[in-house]
């Protein structure tokens, strides 16, 4: 396997609507920023992996139009896997280079959730029309069940969860690209309107328009591009069965535990909380950060609820989580996974807007489907742990 590094990152500003730009213009904005960051030109990019989730965009197969942002005449591959799309697109671009077939490949994801009336009914068309569709299954309803089960089993409180939101919102204030910027405390979260019990408005992500691009390069090329690249140390993707009702226990995200175990074994991580300095987790709902911290071994089962409240996941804590403000404050659904990787890479490069001191290794995560998929990528300033 060829060693691969991330050498450039570009993000647009994420907003409720980006009516100022067309789909390919928005894509190009992210691509241009990534190219500038890596001091490269479009002609240097040998191949592109492109990701989006068509149903949210009001346009089907938008890659056909978006290819005009700089992909014409190049190998250009469209990836779409639900909420994990951003990170699987990053993974596909990584494989372009790791295989030795290309020296420089770009992952780019664009999403305009502002184009669809409501994301949840759209997501509902993903589930089985016979057994689950009429239940209203979507992202928020399954997250609410996760929260209820976790509360019943571990005594997690609404206040515990509110602290996750407070932490993310405080972090987003430092991120110029973040969508929702609110200076809020626990009281505001607890007093915000109930959306899907027990999750309240300020515990739920927005729907965002925006794009993100990440450039991958082979070892020889990466060294020439920058002296602080983010080396890709490993990846893991896992797929569960189709029916949300078939998950064995919603108080644990067992598939994420399995994926994490595989990644950590491959990358040589013994103790995640010690070996990983920053985590960018896909937590559009407060409860999910708690479940993810537990599933990945950062917290013991049932103890993840304390992490935000006790400051462990704040930027000055032992396990800084989502210093970008996370999915809680910015969610361009099919691009969100790649934003996680972009932010994790910037932390490793020492160039993040809400930089954590002395980061050497960072984890990026995305989940998708109705709790069906997970993808993880690990990046580091070191070539090997």
């Amino acid at each position, binding site marked *: 396997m060829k060693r691969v590094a991330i050498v450039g990152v570009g993000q647009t500003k994420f907003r409720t609507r980006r009516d100022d730009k067309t789909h390919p213009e928005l894509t190009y904005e992210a691509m241009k920023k990534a190219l500038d960051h890596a001091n490269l030109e479009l002609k240097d990019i040998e191949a592109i992996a492109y990701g989006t989730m068509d149903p949210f965009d*009001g*346009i*089907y197969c938008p890659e056909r139009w978006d290819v005009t942002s700089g992909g014409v005449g190049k190998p250009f591959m469209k990836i779409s896997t639900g909420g994990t799309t951003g990170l699987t697109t990053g993974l596909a671009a990584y494989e372009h280079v790791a*295989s030795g077939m290309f020296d420089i490949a770009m992952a780019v994801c664009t999403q305009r959730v502002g184009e669809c009336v409501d994301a949840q009914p759209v997501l509902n068309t*993903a589930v089985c029309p016979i057994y689950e569709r009429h239940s209203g299954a979507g992202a928020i309803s399954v997250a609410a069940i996760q929260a209820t089960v976790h509360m019943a089993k571990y005594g997690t409180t609404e206040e515990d969860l509110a602290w996750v939101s407070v932490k993310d919102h405080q972090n987003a204030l430092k991120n110029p690209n973040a969508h929702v910027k609110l200076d809020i405390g626990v009281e505001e979260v607890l007093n915000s309107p109930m959306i899907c019990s027990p999750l309240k408005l300020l515990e739920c992500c927005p729907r965002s328009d925006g794009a993100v691009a990440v450039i991958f390069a082979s070892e020889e090329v990466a060294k020439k591009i920058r002296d602080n690249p983010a080396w890709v140390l490993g990846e893991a993707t896992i797929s*569960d069965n189709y029916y949300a009702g078939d998950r064995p226990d919603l108080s644990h995200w067992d598939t994420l535990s399995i994926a994490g175990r595989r990644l950590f074994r491959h990358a040589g991580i013994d103790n995640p909380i010690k070996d990983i300095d920053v985590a960018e987790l896909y937590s559009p709902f407060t409860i999910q950060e708690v479940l993810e911290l537990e599933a990945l071994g950062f917290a013991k089962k049932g103890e993840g609820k304390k992490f935000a409240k006790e400051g462990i996941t704040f930027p000055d804590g032992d396990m800084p989580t989502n210093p970008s403000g996370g999915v809680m404050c910015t969610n361009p659904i099919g691009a969100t996974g790649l934003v996680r990787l972009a932010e994790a890479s910037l932390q490793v490069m020492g160039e993040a807007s809400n930089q954590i001191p002395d980061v050497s290794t960072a984890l990026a995560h995305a989940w998708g489907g109705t709790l069906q998929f997970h993808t993880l990528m690990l990046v580091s300033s070191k070539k090997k742990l």
Partner: protein
Amino acid sequence: MKIGIVGVGITEFRIHEEPFYNVAYQAAKTAMKDAGIERREIDSFILGGYDSLGVGRTISNMYVAPAAGGYLRHEIRVADDAAFSIPLAFMRIKSGLSDVAIALGFGHSSETPVELVEVQSLDPLFHRDLKLAPQMGYAMQSYAYRNAYNVSEEDLAEAVVKDRKNAMKNDYAYVKEETSVEEVLNSDMAVYPLREPEIAKWCDGCVAFILAEETIARRINPDPVWIGGLGWSYDNYFLGARELDKLNSTKLAAEKAYKMAGIRSEDVDSVEIMDLTSDYHFMILEALGFADYGSGKELLDSDFPVNKSGGALCTNAYGSTGMFLMANLAMQIRNGEAERGITHAISGIGQNSVVCVLSK
């Protein structure tokens, strides 16, 4: 390191009324049986097929992945014709991240009105009001092609006749009905200048390949079909900025595939092409380098095997057509009917192409 195909599974290509994951399951199971391996021996599940509207469900890999066998495994989807998932599976194995992978393509066009869905792929500013269904785009290309090179309707009808004749001998083909040049020329005009038999009909079906790294491949199957070259490339979206009488995405993809395999078009002895129209049949062969521009017809008069499967004109399951053609070529190589061949797939209105070189 070489990467080989060690198992092939093709389902029936027709209109499937049963829950579609059953069809995907059938393809995966058949491919595993063909390779003589179990699900647990496969580490990566690379799916290919369209999303949402194209199969009637958002995030279509949600319901296809478990049917393919992807439970608790690495799984990803290329959202295009499934032939575009072959390069991704290839790169994953080449990276060393996978030893044995399955690539599974699904096409379920009967679930949705494809033309209506495809109109939604047009940008809302310039093209959507034109309500261009794919067949209308193909018709513009046909019109440009016929005019640029004075290609006759009779010659084009012959391409249909030949594909139909070949399909009669292919158990997996969808349209099995021989026709004649007269019949084609007297059939209804579908979208001028394309007549009804000159446009591929939609159907449903799945295909799966088991792919493996060289040393493992030889353990599974003493005679794998090797993937020697791959190329994929995109053309401009704006039809007004394209040469409508040529398929430049195919040309670029072919150049890359030939370069990777270290061969030229003369070095292959069978071709499977995604001829969605009669004109595409010639235009693709020209873009692949088998004939000069406007001279694709020459191949009809030769013994050179093109679309022994019956081509896309006889079997076109929106999403798995390219992989269907590839499976047919792999079988020909296995049966000793060909030593080295190339397969081609195309999507959009001829905008995106992938070319794959397969050999003994």
